[in-house]
């Protein structure tokens, strides 16, 4: 039991990272960024390329992975979403474009690296036991990185000017731009930061279990669910939602089997959408306000 909770927490920490990025992008720019999945996968493959092809040491390779993801995320916003935002296209148009971007990236990566699963580490992981719980080193770093980054992110939003601007844009983009905020610059920043979070999450998973080009979609859907059950319009709620989902998924695996994981995630989502749309920490709003 404790073992499963611990596994679930580590898993949840990764979901929380991806969800924080997704949530930051969604709350700031109102883009339902399905292509976040592409960035997620890209981060892991950049790490793979840096480690296996270029034979770079791990820290440099991780930096390279983050850099690639950040650049790709910003490019997607600049080339795809910003023109649509300028035309004030509907959210459906943006969502469909995002889906298209994901399909393109995913298959480009599959062309470059093959469709099969790539493993980054060979051999048995070193493990650490705490009481009756046994965790691998990667799992422990998942938990630590997850908690640290979430904390840093909170400080960033509360206490830096850029963080405040993100919150301002999320509140009212038109008003912010009238007051002289360079909305597009903040957008790019949100995308860059969000993409970095996705890349860090994906690299932590890739080091643990490897990756294939098609894992991104289900991870980002889980992250989106985490955002919603945590409560949108709240930058930190996705982290709580992520940990909650990680724990639940782990319990599902324990009680039944891994194959129902996704169905349960979406079951939870539908439950929340019907009974508590504002999420755990959200505040209910009138329909006109959430449009």
């Amino acid at each position, binding site marked *: 039991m404790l073992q499963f909770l611990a596994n679930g927490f580590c898993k949840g920490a990764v979901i929380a990272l991806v969800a924080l990025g997704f949530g930051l992008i969604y709350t700031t720019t109102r883009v*339902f960024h399905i292509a976040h999945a592409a960035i997620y996968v890209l981060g892991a493959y950049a790490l793979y390329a840096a480690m296996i092809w270029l034979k770079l040491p791990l820290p440099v390779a991780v930096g390279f992975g983050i850099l690639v993801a950040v650049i790709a995320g910003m490019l997607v916003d600049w080339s*795809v979403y910003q*023109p*649509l935002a300028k035309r004030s*296209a*509907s*959210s*459906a*148009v*943006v*969502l*469909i*474009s995002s*889906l*298209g*971007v*994901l*399909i*393109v990236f*995913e*298959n*480009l990566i*599959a*062309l470059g690296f093959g*469709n099969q699963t790539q493993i980054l580490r060979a051999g048995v992981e070193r493990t650490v036991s705490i009481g009756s719980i046994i965790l691998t080193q990667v799992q422990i770093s998942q938990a630590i990185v997850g908690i640290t980054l979430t904390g840093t992110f909170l400080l960033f939003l509360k206490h830096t000017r850029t963080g405040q601007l993100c919150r301002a844009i999320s509140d009212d983009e038109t008003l912010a731009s009238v007051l002289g905020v360079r909305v597009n610059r903040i957008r790019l920043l949100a995308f860059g930061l969000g993409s970095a979070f996705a890349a860090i999450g994906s690299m932590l998973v890739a080091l643990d279990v490897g990756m294939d080009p098609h894992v991104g*979609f289900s991870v980002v*859907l889980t992250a*989106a*669910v985490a955002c*919603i059950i945590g409560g949108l319009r709240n930058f930190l709620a996705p982290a709580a939602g992520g940990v909650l989902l990680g724990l639940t998924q782990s319990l599902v695996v324990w009680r039944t089997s891994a*194959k*129902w994981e*996704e*169905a349960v*995630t*979406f*079951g939870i*989502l*539908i439950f929340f*959408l*019907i009974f508590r*749309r504002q999420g755990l920490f959200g505040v209910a709003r009138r*329909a006109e306000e*959430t*449009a």
Partner: protein
Amino acid sequence: MNYLYHILIMICLYATLAQSLNLVVGYGGLLSLSHAAFYGLGAYIGSLLMMQAHWPFLLSLVTAVVTVSVLAWLVSIPAIRLHGDFFVLATLGFQVIVFAILYNWVDVTRGPYGIPGVPKPSVFGHSVTSPPAFLALAAVVALLCCGVLWLLLSSPFGRTLQAVREDEIAAASLGKDVNAFKRSAFAWAGAVAAVPGVLFATYSSYIDPTSFGLEESIFILCILIIGGAGNFRGPIIGAVVLVLLPEGLRFLRIPDSIAANLRQILYGLALVLMMRLRPQGIAGKYAFD
């Protein structure tokens, strides 16, 4: 020659599917990613009735259509309370759950092994086995389905549905029960989507869950979006273009190992470019705005 029949049969099936999705997405303005779920439920219910209960083809078909229609109606009740991105996410959730059930409920669906040996359809005592005969059946069924949708759309129901899409509050203020119209659109779309499901099962005589996953939902949506939503010609044009496109790639002698990925890349690019340059699709009227 059989190759040509195969392509034409696929065009008929996908045109019907996209046309039924058009009712929800194009005329109802509800972006849904769960159409492959209805398609797959139709295929599974039809096949299981024919194989386990030994029901005749037509009776199984009708039962599958009615069952899927009721299911679609039930799903729409919670879903339409949501708007925009959340609605899409809810339909996506339904798609994922249906896939998980088809894949994991091994006792009934045989899960990943799929159902082999689905019998060929027999209509009024004639067994439809040869490809040209099947094409005739698929074409007649596609025409019938499109006919039903056409009647539906030119009736007051269709007009009101479009009014709801354009301005929900205005429609409501004229005394229309907005949500009831959306639910009916879903039920009709589910009913029509089940038909190509049953046909596909009997045509390929083997079904497994991977034919009805999220990728398939996205593909059907691609057909509709590229062809043009909210217009009767759109889905048909889209089905022709998107079914022929991979066949065209085949003639370019692209190796199989990359052809599948390349095809996906083309679909993805088409979606992005369409949304940027022509959100209403090739022949569409409705631009998702």
